[in-house]
């Protein structure tokens, strides 16, 4: 598995671009693309290749996989649980260097997203991170960025140092992004 860096680029201002020539984006992919474009990235959709798992988007050369939740209404009023969040992250591992969980109007809270990331890290510690280098959760009024590579290596160091897990329940802390 190729080890991709998270982002190659640094944007100090200005709007990027979005190219849907290869494939029409879904609503959720468009939502994520708009966020990335506003940050200055050059974003494009990818055509799925038969027989190979492909990411949804490429942003300035970095593969981005989008995982979305249905609306709270479509979910029968039940917001996502931490296990749902973790499974979306686990599912994204093979497809993109950056996994973006698009919470939309699902009712996903920051606390649940954080707990889900904790579960994801526990499982990824056993089974590996795959291609994912960064995980981002975008919900109503929040945008959280996690660095699982760093969090897992930190946890491994801690385990090596004291020979017992130090990771608290709820997992590593997310970096809060300004929206």
């Amino acid at each position, binding site marked *: 598995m190729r080890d991709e860096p998270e982002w190659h680029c640094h944007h100090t201002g200005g709007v990027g671009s979005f190219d849907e020539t290869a494939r029409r984006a*879904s*609503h959720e*992919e468009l939502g994520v693309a708009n966020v990335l474009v506003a940050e200055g990235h050059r974003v494009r959709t990818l055509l799925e290749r038969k*027989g190979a*798992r492909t990411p949804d988007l490429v942003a300035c050369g970095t593969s981005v996989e989008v995982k979305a939740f249905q609306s709270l209404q479509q979910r029968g009023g039940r917001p*996502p649980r931490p296990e749902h969040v973790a*499974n979306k992250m*686990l599912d994204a591992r093979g497809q993109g260097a950056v996994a973006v969980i*698009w919470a939309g109007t699902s009712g996903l809270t920051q606390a649940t997203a954080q707990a889900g990331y904790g579960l994801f890290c526990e*499982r990824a510690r056993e089974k590996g991170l795959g291609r994912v280098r960064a995980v981002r959760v975008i919900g109503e009024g929040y945008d959280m960025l996690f660095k699982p590579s760093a969090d897992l290596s930190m946890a491994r160091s801690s385990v090596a140092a004291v020979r017992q897990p130090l990771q608290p329940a709820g997992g590593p802390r997310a970096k809060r992004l300004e929206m």
Partner: protein
Amino acid sequence: MSRTVDLFLDSDQPLSRVAERLSELTGNQLVASPDKAHFVMVAGDVTAYLAEHDFLDDDDLPLSEFRYVLSASVRGVGDIEQSPEVSCLRQVNILLRQGAAFVSLLVIDLERPDAPEPRPQ
């Protein structure tokens, strides 16, 4: 893609044997990836991947009871229930049950079981 449909199935057989059995049942040859970590099934416009999984259990979804998953990304933007991917894996699920091949569970978007079929009157 942002949405998936997953057919979880359990067997004590190795992945290659499960892929063989699925090929027999569906008439679609499952092809091994170069590292043999997964198999690919192409059925018309639908591409599905068979592999072991490590998804977590939810109240309604005892996923850890199933060793393997046949997973397809939903390419369209419309109702997932009407997608060719759901239709395809529903058909595979029916074939599995008719053939009594594997215990299986069809899951929509890793969040809910597929709606049960109406019982005959």
